[in-house]
């Protein structure tokens, strides 16, 4: 297995340039920023609100962007050309993931800046966000491999957005609708726990559990994406 940094960079640059001109997909990345602006007007907001915007950003930017840019390559018959070039599918997906990661981090950081939320002294939370980002990107990669068009991607992202992106909001309704309690296990809620526990001065002896749950999500989606990826390599 070879990996060429030069080819990876070529894909990265191309996707960045292309995304810049892709209003439909890039405007989705503005959603978390819009929420951030709205909440910043409210004034004093609870920690949970910040975590809601962070999780929304991870799902909407991380997962959707990744899924949409992979799906579009298939829709426009450009993936075939890349696959016939010396670029390997690993290089292609790595280049795309890098674009998604960069943009997700920027959008998340800017949203938090707008909401006056400082990351200083929140090392645990940053670690949790980065780990969750792997999950959201892997989920987007898997969805990109199974969807055939940007339109399909926009439909498939809806359940992801409701379950993973907005869990922090819907969990408030869990008292009335007990089935919503499963949302407890989403990475978003686990991030909220990490933020709250570490705020209260907890160490790793208490924090390991939310990290382990997020890690389980990461492992599951990585396996899912890898299996689908292998299948795609064949045909």
């Amino acid at each position, binding site marked *: 297995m*070879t990996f*060429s940094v*030069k*080819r990876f*960079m*070529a*894909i990265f*640059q*191309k996707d960045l*340039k*292309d995304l810049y*001109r*892709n209003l439909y997909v890039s405007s989705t990345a503005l959603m978390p920023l819009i929420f951030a602006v709205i909440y910043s007007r409210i004034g004093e907001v609870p920690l949970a609100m910040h975590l809601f915007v962070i999780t929304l950003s991870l799902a909407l930017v991380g997962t959707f962007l990744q899924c949409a840019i992979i799906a579009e390559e298939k829709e*426009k*018959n*450009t993936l*075939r*050309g*890349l*696959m*016939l*070039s*010396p*670029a*390997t599918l690993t290089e292609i997906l790595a280049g795309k993931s890098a674009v998604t990661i960069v943009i997700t981090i920027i959008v998340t950081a800017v949203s938090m800046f707008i909401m006056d939320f400082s990351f200083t002294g929140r090392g645990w939370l940053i670690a949790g966000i980065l780990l969750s980002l792997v999950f959201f990107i892997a989920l987007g990669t898997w969805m990109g491999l199974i969807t055939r068009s940007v339109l399909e991607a926009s439909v498939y992202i809806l359940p992801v957005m409701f379950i993973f992106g907005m869990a922090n909001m819907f969990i408030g309704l869990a008292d009335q609708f007990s089935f919503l309690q499963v949302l407890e296990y989403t990475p978003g809620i686990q991030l909220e726990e990490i933020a709250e526990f570490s705020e209260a001065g907890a160490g790793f002896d208490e924090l390991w559990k939310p990290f382990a749950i997020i890690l389980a999500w990461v492992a599951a989606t990585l396996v899912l994406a890898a299996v689908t990826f292998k299948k795609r390599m064949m*045909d």
Partner: protein
Amino acid sequence: MIEVKSLEKIFGDKRALQDVSFQVKKGETFGFLGPSGSGKTTTIKILTGQMRQSAGTANVFGIPVSQLNTPEYRKRFGVVTDNSGLYARLTIYDNLKLYADLYGTSLQRIDEALESVNLGSEKKTQVAKLSKGMTQRVLLARTLLHKPELLFLDEPTSALDPANSKHIHNGLKELNRQGTTIFLTTHDMEEADHLCSQVAFLNKGVVQLLDEPKQLKKQYREEIIGIELKDGRELELPLKASSAEEIQQYISREMVERIYTKEPTLGDIFVEVTGRELV
């Protein structure tokens, strides 16, 4: 360069290729001719590793096509199919720059490749604004960037007007002169005649005939002399001694407008061999 033996491809219960065998030698321009649905694109897909055959062997560069999926081998060939795509939001230049980087060729090649398809002045144009023919020329330029040893072209001029077809034909001839082996499919018989050193007739998944265009035309030439007389009559006489006297009479009486032999086109030969029109 290419060796194909008893190639077979089955889609469900449909047999797209039944028994295809042929060889392409280095330096040839090989025309793969056949009507729509005869299996031309399927053959290219198998040869470029985009699809597995159901049976038979296919070797390219002397190795089985199943082993062609490494960056090193992919650098040695180029492909343009009818469903290749470009990035519509990017400029022609940016589209080619991506591929120049992927193939590790110099950026100077972009200008040279665009020049060879007559698009030197359109570098900065966004691909979304191009006509179908221009898009096809950009795709061709894209595969020329890395000067492949072997070029697969699936109906390269099907969307082009005669002037641009001619330009592409000249470009391909030049490329071939410089050593690129070309495998092209087409149902344009004139194109095949003009470009190819070998042609294969594919019909219903079987290669029915394989030879040089010149040989084919010689072989299928009708043994007839046509005479057009000044009074408008047209005669066809067998190319035999028995016709000599009659012909001489027309000539000595200065009645002849034109004398010709009947050369079949590749299209005529295709119909004769397969009993099918090439559409």
